């Protein structure tokens, strides 16, 4: 029995190590274009892990993670924009008749500040909304709606404040990061490697978090919040913490996204992308850490693949994929794996019984 547990752990570790090495060495066997796409998918995968912590483990569905992703992305983009203009005003500001840099943009002249704010700002917003709602035991569908309204409100604000955010066209035309030209293949490879490393770190960190006592409390809140409350835990504090954490992770994903894609606009962070993010988690399998990663990469790869092969009707394929998964695999792709494992186990048990019979 003990040896099988060790084998299992070793097996997991080996599989993850192989995956990690495969991802790290991707620059060797993928073209620059494919590598860039994969990097984008992995940035989404980071966000999906954070979303799964909230939805799959704590049972709080947020339809508003696009905005946290967007805030991180905009923080990074503001710095990149300023660096591209070498101290001058970004082009859209001159167009809307501004003569000096607005106050909000000032901290983003410094890359370190921009990166820190890209994590802290979404986290702060999530903390405020989370503590105001969870404290009053606003949960379930109420919270989901509020999180979606947050997206609508902020996206409207982003579009409306054209002179500060670039309006609907967003921020683009970045050139350098720390003085290194961004659009060269070697820099993009570096961004890809950074994304893989961040993904691995967040993956391992979150796995550690949910496999311990803390994770059990989260699952307890998901399955019976009132019981946890009666046991003396404070579900609101746990929920607020996880919401804040997952917003911070989303911000990080947004920053990595902007570095590789080179543009961020309100349509990428609105209501539809926010719902799509939830779909990645659902398709991959919620309540596991590897599921959302698989889901995010697979859905986005399918999106790219379908749209390349069938430019006219690719959305139908994507829709069909979603319907099939929801109808036949309610637990997502990792659920398929679990049932397969359970079935094999029960078969093994059957074998043991047979052996026992033959001894009799």
């Amino acid at each position, binding site marked *: 029995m003990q040896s099988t547990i060790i084998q299992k752990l070793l097996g997991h570790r080996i599989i993850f190590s192989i995956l990690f090495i495969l991802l790290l060495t991707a620059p060797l066997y993928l073209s620059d274009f494919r590598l860039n796409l994969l990097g984008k998918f992995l940035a989404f995968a980071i966000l999906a892990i954070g979303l799964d912590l909230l939805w799959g483990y704590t049972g709080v569905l947020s339809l508003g993670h696009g905005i946290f992703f967007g805030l991180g992305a905009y923080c990074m983009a503001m710095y990149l924009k300023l660096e591209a203009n070498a101290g001058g005003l970004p082009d859209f500001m001159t167009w809307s008749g501004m003569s000096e840099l607005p106050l909000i943009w000032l901290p983003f002249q410094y890359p370190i500040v921009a990166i820190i704010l890209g994590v802290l700002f979404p986290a702060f917003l999530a903390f405020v909304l989370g503590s105001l709602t969870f404290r*009053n035991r606003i949960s379930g*569908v*109420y919270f989901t*709606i509020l999180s*979606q*309204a947050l997206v609508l409100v902020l996206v409207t*604000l982003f*579009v*409306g404040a054209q002179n500060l955010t670039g309006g609907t066209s967003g921020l683009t035309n970045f050139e350098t990061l720390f003085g290194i030209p961004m659009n060269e293949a070697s820099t993009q490879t570096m961004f890809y490697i950074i994304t893989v490393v961040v993904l691995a770190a967040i993956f391992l960190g979150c796995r550690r978090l949910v496999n311990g006592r803390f994770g059990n409390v989260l699952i307890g809140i998901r399955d019976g919040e*009132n019981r946890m409350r009666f046991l003396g835990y404070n579900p609101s504090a746990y929920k607020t913490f996880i919401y804040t954490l997952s917003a911070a992770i989303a911000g990080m994903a947004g920053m990595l996204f902007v570095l590789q894609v080179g543009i961020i606009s309100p349509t990428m962070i609105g209501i539809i992308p926010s719902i799509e993010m939830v779909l990645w988690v659902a398709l991959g399998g919620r309540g596991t850490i590897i599921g959302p990663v698989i889901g995010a990469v697979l859905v986005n790869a399918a999106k790219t693949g379908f749209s390349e092969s069938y430019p006219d009707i690719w959305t139908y394929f994507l829709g069909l994929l979603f319907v099939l998964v929801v109808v036949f695999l309610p637990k997502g792709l990792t659920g398929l794996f679990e049932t397969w494992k359970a079935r094999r186990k029960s078969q093994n048990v059957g074998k043991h019984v047979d052996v026992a019979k033959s001894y009799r």
Partner: protein
Amino acid sequence: MVGSLSLPYSRLFILALSIVCLVSIYYYFYRTANGRRTRAVMQNRQMAECLGVSTRKVDMITFAIGSGFAGVAGCALTLLGAIGPTIGTNYIIDAFMVVVVGGVGALFGAVAGAFGIGIFNTVFEYVTSASIGKVLIFLLIIAFLQWRPSGLVVSRSRSLD
């Protein structure tokens, strides 16, 4: 028509349509057997199931009715403005917010919530700008929920999730 206030016929029609819808929904929910079952499922799903209510059937019927009324609302909207494939997304959030403010499962709450949000929305957008108005409405709703966490009308039930 009345004094300096004038209402176009199309708007009067929408007003009448919504009153008809409201009355028929009220009749369905509070005067028919199916409506009673629906309310029972809403208040305590498991207990309703134990007492022989087919929750599956109730879910299906309720979803169908809800979708139908959304269609009626869509018809009314064609009289007010431009129509496009994405017209629904503009109203999703507002519709949800109405339910949150009014209280889930309360007809009167939904009506009051719709009036409240509609009026405040118009006032804020008139006083400030469209985008700032949205922010103010959102903040107002968050503040309102601090005072009334489960909406204007609370449906009491003994079920504990």
